[in-house]
């Protein structure tokens, strides 16, 4: 189950808990079906409640960047907690200009 909000053509997804390879698979398909159904102009991934993330989370971000880009939308990564900064910086996601 995914906690989402859709308003003004912006799809916000509230991620939570631990994002690893096991969970990323389900999160990915849940987000993609919403992207395809709603075709938002912007996808916001809210990381406020994410307590742990490994490189599977980076794959998830990069994949959604592509998925929303394919329908002409853009991606925003919001509310990244301090404990995830290190992996986000290492991954190069910052260079995409999606962090807010």
């Amino acid at each position, binding site marked *: 189950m995914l906690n989402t909000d859709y308003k003004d053509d912006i799809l916000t997804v509230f991620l939570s808990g631990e994002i690893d390879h*096991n969970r990323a698979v389900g999160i990915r398909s849940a987000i993609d079906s919403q992207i395809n159904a709603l075709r938002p102009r912007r996808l916001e991934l809210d990381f406020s409640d994410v307590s742990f993330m490994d490189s599977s989370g980076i*794959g998830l971000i*990069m994949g959604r960047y592509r998925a929303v880009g394919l329908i002409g939308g853009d991606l925003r990564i919001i509310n990244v907690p301090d404990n995830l900064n290190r992996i986000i910086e290492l991954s190069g996601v910052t260079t995409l200009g999606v962090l807010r």
Partner: protein
Amino acid sequence: MNVINEMHIRFQSKSTNESFARSVISAFVLELDPTISELADIKTAVSEAVTNSIVHGYCRESGMIYIDAKITDARKVIIKIRDKGIGIKDISRAMQPLFTTAAEEERAGLGFAVMQSFMDDVKVRSKPGQGTTVTLTKQIVPLR
């Protein structure tokens, strides 16, 4: 350098066991009273190595993953993660950032880069057909 504690576990190469492995290793190193960031580094590195064994080593087929962990009196944590999967043909290529053989699964190709960045030392031994052993070492800072 004397070993003051050690543990061995083995578990099936199921992706639900990624969080199990992280929990076990966290509990094991707690006696050193690591900082939150040291603990997060270790959990992340172990998660990467175990995921590699599941996704690449066993290619999602069933197999066993073995973790041997030690704590030394010098406050060093040494964690060996071993599988008997397909092994790695070219280790230095596999360790290059962004290299992945599972792009369609959205693997970012950052597993080894994360391990190297989050741990003090990463050693990889592998032979095609015989599996892979990753040894992760981290020095836990002295107690304040």
